[in-house]
């Protein structure tokens, strides 16, 4: 299918689908709480559509997927502070993913880097908002959990991309 997606209109349509999918994945994840007693530890399934878009259509199409999803999620389930947290983590991780992608990391590497930075960004935002440095205790756990979740997502995304297109741009 994506090989046939060429015109901007078609790309726009698929991107919109990705936004919806990303939102739905985020919602899905909220339904299955992965409770380990530490805030911020999660799979980050919502990042999969973002990465798919990034790999298929490039940065320009991936940014709206990221931002709109965060705005939608905050408007639906969140509050002001969770919005700030997600946005900080989301933007930071996106920048890192773009850099890693350009510097020739595999999709798993990109995903891992993105997930880890996402967690760091959230932690940094939380540290600023609460004015404490006690949160640093969470750092090792969030680093490792980000790495694992990122690896899983990366492999999933890779598998999805290879199935929906033989050739990516």
């Amino acid at each position, binding site marked *: 299918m994506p090989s046939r997606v060429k015109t901007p209109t078609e790309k726009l349509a698929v991107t919109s689908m990705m936004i919806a999918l990303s939102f739905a994945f985020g919602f899905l994840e909220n339904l299955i709480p992965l409770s380990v007693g530490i805030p911020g530890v999660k799979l980050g399934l919502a990042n999969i559509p973002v990465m798919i878009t990034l790999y298929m259509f490039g940065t320009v199409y991936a940014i709206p997927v990221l931002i709109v999803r965060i705005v939608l999620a905050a408007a639906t389930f969140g509050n002001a502070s969770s919005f700030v947290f997600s946005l900080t983590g989301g933007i930071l991780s996106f920048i890192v993913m773009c850099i890693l992608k350009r*510097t020739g*990391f*595999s999709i*798993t*590497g990109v995903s*891992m880097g993105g997930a880890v930075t996402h967690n760091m960004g959230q932690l940094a935002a939380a540290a600023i908002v609460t004015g*404490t440095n006690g949160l640093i205790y969470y750092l*090792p756990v969030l680093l490792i959990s980000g790495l694992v979740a990122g690896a899983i997502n990366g492999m999933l995304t*890779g598998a999805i*991309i290879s199935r929906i297109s033989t050739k990516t741009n």
Partner: protein
Amino acid sequence: MSGNILKFKKKDIILAAAVIAVATLCAVLTPLLSRKGEFAVITVSGQEYGRYDLNENRTITVTTDLGTNEVTIEDGKVYVSYADCPQEICARHRPVSSDGESIICVPHELVITIASNSDEGEVDAVTG
């Protein structure tokens, strides 16, 4: 470069290893950095008189124009072992050891406060 995005590369492994290394480093370092240096701070008439490590058993005698208090640190706890104030409320106070707890001798304007370097679970005020 397209096509091989799926292939796990050496630099991916370096990235993962770096993250794991940083995580390990943090896990090892944070407990060291936030070591609780708990101590007792004695103030007289609003002026700091001295601060004393709770891990060190000792007796501090504070004598001022207002009177004498003997402060004892024992097994990480602090109490007033002797006071020549009228009602000796401070000497009847149970030993304190938690962050932010204090013993106050009103007539002698003497305050013993437990302090530490972290303020997370610190007591902000005492009722009773």
